[in-house]
């Protein structure tokens, strides 16, 4: 018989069972009759002949069963039978089954959900052709610990034209543009590029062509390539879009191409335009571009890195004043995209894995306890002819059914969980759009179901099957041994639960401590009651005098609004989206040649800025009305800038320039020093900063910073009204409160803390339930013994300590293991923590204290109940 036939036979077996059974019956009858006839022939009387025949045949039913088994095809039949039996058992104990399905559903669901997130963000390759060839390229400041810095236009152009290991190297920077002529004026996210973005990613345009490198030169044509979604949403997917023009910041751009659906880089880009940067407006010292490149096929990243490092060295030689200690660094794009999030997500995955393990330990414990309660049933089955294999199989089927139901619930929960994750996720997690519960996730869920079944089912199944029938039937004498044996397994599982819970609790503790520290960070300014919003005047319509006049009037009008205490304007607001650093040259000051690279973060502010944000003036004076366009060019620097660039001196009166060779560039005189602020984000230490009067260095994009009286409401509409009255074609960015903005910076920490917190809580509850269940079960098993002890004069204290002492070991051992595990795991967490060490004593003692108390209560309740048992009741049990 071929394998296929055998398999077919097994599957159709249950349907042919009736006939086969008849055959067996008939064949045995034939045999018996032949035997009887033979006996009759030998002269035995009929009754005796039949008796002998039966005797010779042996135990009929037993042999029938053996014959059935030998016939084959019974596996599937037995499976169906086991399944029916299991379903009946589970329905018979709805509370028990429900609890297990829920616990496993939560465990498997949470694991599958987090896995889906990790898979979408971290594991899956980037959704571009040959994603491994894509690299992020940036410059580094070798003096500042290889700190990442953006490119300057000339450096990028030099590197791009000299290098040969990349198929292309594109620089890009955000350009805020106002789209007019389609509905209300809107600020859209345009990306200025030095080369075609689609070309770099190796993607064919959906329509038309990509931007060409020569188009990004300062005299290049105004063309644009649209993202598919912008084309669909703003232009209705117009097929004849090529050659159409768009008004962007009062300039006309011709549409030359549309990207294929789903492609946008950076992900919030609406369209790409040529950068049109010139070396005059964007000199070598001005760093603001980010770079992305595509390796030539077969070129390893190390080769490209070596080549670009040598280019960086040559640039340093040719332009020592701007490129000193500037390296070039390549990172695989995926690493750049996923970055820190990878670690955070992997930690979440680890945390959820621990919850799943605890859930498994709990379920295994429950099954063990029930296995004990079912010993009689198992013994009866064994007496009726079930072999060890049959019993293990039955119990495994039961467990498998439970876990499968839990897994099904888990997949449903995972779908909800992923939705919840996406809804709750803060900005900063890349590739959110790629997260889904997909085939891979379902395979993982299935794998979990199988693994969990084996983990939680094998031990109790094995235990039950190896229980000696005699021992059960003689229950009482051997019970002690059985219980003792079981105890070791249960204690082991409890130890595991306690240890894992502690690790999670400590993780959650560390993260909350870190978040508290983060809230305590001294930002250097007072964010309370500050609103901010950004406004961009189209450069074409406003030249410097008009710009200055408009901004002055704008500030004046805002200041008169009810509820407003003070107003200032700034270009490059703290904690904003973009920052510019510029290298400068000292004037009349001998710089230490070994000293730090002279550069500062540039901010242009209106009078009243420091006062509005409560940034303390440490020396000299603040900006005032006299610092007009025609006044002496002045600057105020931050404390860090003073200490770094003019160490040991009073910087007031010192002068510097951004380009001494350019006669149009002013020479700035320092008139004041102000306190440091956290400028780029709240964690990164302060940068050297320089402030300039906006009137002396006008910008078309300004952020209004408004301090309001506490409790001022509806201020946003008032802002809109002022802007609308002054120029109805101006769009207004989202108005936000500075405190909210700071909250956003902590959002991701809060987010991860939230998840770890949920997992830790879940773990603790599960462990407590596990402890409670086991202790309660043991107490119930020993009720009789306890009753005897009480009757013999044992006090409540003795009983309590008797029950407690047996459960102290797993809790203490678990605590020790947990602390050890947590300290090891804390190292992993370390980089996510702010100013908190992984062995932070507050978190450590807090977690241990909490866990031990919860464990204590979970043990104490059943122990106390045991001590209260009246001996008369206890003795009657069983």
């Amino acid at each position: 018989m071929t394998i296929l036939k055998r398999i077919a036979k097994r599957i159709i077996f249950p349907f042919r069972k009736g006939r086969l059974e008849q055959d067996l019956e008939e064949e045995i009858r034939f045999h018996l009759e032949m035997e009887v006839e033979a006996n009759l022939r030998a002269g035995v009387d009929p009754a005796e002949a039949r008796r002998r025949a039966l005797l010779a045949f042996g135990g009929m039913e037993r042999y029938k069963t053996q014959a059935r088994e030998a016939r084959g095809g019974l596996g599937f039949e037995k499976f169906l039978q086991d399944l029916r039996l299991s379903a009946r058992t589970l329905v018979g104990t709805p509370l028990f089954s429900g609890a297990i399905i829920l616990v496993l559903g939560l465990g498997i669901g949470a694991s599958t959900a987090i896995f889906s997130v990790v898979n979408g963000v971290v594991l899956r390759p980037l959704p571009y052709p040959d994603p491994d060839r894509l690299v992020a390229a940036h410059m580094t400041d070798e003096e500042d610990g290889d700190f990442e810095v953006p490119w300057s236009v000339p450096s990028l152009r030099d590197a791009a034209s000299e290098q040969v290991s990349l198929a292309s190297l594109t620089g890009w920077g955000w350009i805020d543009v106002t789209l007019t002529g389609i509905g209300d004026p809107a600020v859209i996210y345009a990306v200025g590029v030095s080369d075609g973005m689609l070309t770099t990613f190796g993607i064919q345009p959906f329509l038309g062509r990509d931007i060409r490198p020569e188009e990004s030169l300062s005299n290049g044509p105004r063309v644009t390539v649209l993202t598919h979604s912008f084309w669909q949403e703003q232009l209705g997917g117009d097929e004849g879009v090529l050659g159409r023009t768009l008004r962007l910041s009062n300039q006309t751009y011709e549409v030359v191409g549309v990207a294929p659906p789903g492609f946008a880089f950076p992900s919030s880009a609406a369209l790409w335009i040529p950068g049109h940067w010139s070396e005059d407006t964007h000199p070598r010292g001005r760093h603001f571009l980010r770079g992305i490149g595509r390796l030539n096929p077969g070129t390893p990243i190390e080769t490209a890195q070596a080549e670009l490092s040598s280019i960086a060295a040559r640039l340093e030689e040719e332009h020592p004043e701007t490129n000193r200690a500037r390296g070039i660094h390549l990172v695989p794009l995926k690493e750049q995209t996923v970055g820190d999030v990878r670690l955070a997500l992997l930690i979440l995955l680890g945390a959820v894995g621990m919850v799943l393990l605890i859930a498994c330990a709990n379920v295994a414990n429950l099954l063990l306890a029930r296995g004990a309660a079912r010993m009689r049933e198992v013994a009866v089955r064994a007496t009726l002819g079930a072999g060890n294999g049959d019993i293990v199989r039955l119990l495994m089927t039961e467990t498998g059914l439970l876990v499968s139901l839990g897994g099904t619930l888990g997949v449903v929960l995972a779908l909800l969980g992923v939705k919840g994750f996406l809804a709750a996720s803060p900005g900063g997690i890349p590739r959110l759009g790629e997260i889904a519960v997909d085939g891979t996730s379902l395979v993982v869920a299935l794998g979990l179901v199988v693994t969990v079944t084996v983990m939680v089912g094998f031990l109790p199944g094995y235990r039950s099957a190896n229980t000696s029938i005699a021992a059960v039937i003689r229950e009482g004498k051997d019970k002690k041994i059985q219980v003792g044996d079981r105890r070791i397994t249960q204690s082991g599982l409890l130890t595991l639960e306690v240890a894992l819970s502690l690790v999670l609790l400590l993780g959650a503790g560390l993260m909350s401590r870190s978040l508290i520290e983060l809230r305590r960070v001294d930002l250097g300014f007072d964010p309370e009651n500050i609103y901010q919003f950004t406004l961009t005047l189209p450069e074409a319509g406003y030249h410097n005098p008009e710009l200055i006049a408009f901004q002055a009037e704008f500030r004046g009008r805002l200041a008169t609004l009810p509820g407003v205490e003070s107003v200032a304007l700034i270009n490059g607001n703290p904690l904003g989206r973009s920052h510019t650093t510029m290298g400068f040259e000292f004037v009349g000051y001998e710089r230490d040649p070994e000293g730090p690279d002279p550069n500062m973060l540039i901010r242009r502010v209106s009078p009243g800025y420091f006062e509005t944000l409560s940034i303390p003036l440490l020396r000299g004076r603040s900006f005032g009305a006299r610092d007009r366009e025609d006044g002496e060019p002045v600057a105020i620097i931050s404390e860090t800038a003073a200490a770094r660039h003019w160490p040991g001196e009073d910087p007031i009166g010192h002068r510097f320039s951004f380009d001494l060779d350019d006669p149009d560039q002013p020479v700035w005189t320092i008139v004041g020093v102000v306190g440091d602020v956290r400028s780029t984000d709240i964690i990164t230490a302060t940068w050297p900063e320089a402030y300039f009067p906006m009137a002396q260095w006008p910008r078309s994009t300004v952020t209004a910073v408004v301090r309001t009286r506490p409790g001022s409401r509806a201020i946003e509409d008032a802002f809109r009204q002022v802007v609308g009255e002054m120029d109805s074609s101006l769009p207004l960015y989202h108005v936000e409160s500075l405190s909210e903005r700071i909250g956003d910076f902590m959002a991701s920490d809060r987010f991860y803390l939230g998840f770890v917190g949920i997992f830790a809580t879940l773990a603790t509850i599960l462990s407590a339930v596990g402890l409670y269940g086991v202790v309660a079960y043991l107490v119930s098993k020993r009720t009789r013994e306890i009753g005897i002890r009480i009757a013999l004069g044992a006090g409540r204290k003795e009983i309590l300590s008797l029950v407690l002492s047996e459960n102290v070991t797993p809790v203490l051992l678990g605590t020790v293991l947990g602390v050890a595990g947590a300290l090891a795991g804390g190292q992993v967490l370390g980089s996510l923590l702010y100013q908190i060490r992984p062995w932070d004593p507050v978190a450590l003692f807090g977690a241990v204290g909490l866990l031990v108390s919860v464990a204590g209560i979970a043990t104490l309740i059943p122990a106390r109940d045991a001590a209260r048992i009246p001996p008369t009741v206890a003795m009657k049990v069983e």
Partner: protein
Amino acid sequence: MPKGKPDLLHGTLELLILKTLALQPLHGWGIAKHIGHLSQEVLEIGQGSLYPALYRLEDRGWIRAEWGVAETGRRAKVYELTKKGAKQLASEEAHWEAFSVAVNRVLGSA
């Protein structure tokens, strides 16, 4: 099993069944009687274990069964050897030969 009669070695029953069927197709009872006769009632097959063995052999495809009519005119399930079974028989016989020679040598030398 009565005392004084050797227990069948594991797997030998199958060999005996195959050998019996190599002579002629036969029903279960006939097989048992045949083996009993030939062994001069030394090998009395625990008859209940006959059918499991038959079913096992059928499942493996070494023998096949058909409902026919026995000598007595009763409906009986008659087993016959398949080609595969014949091959199996040849190899098992050889195996048994080697085995019994080996055992005899050991016993003879003791």
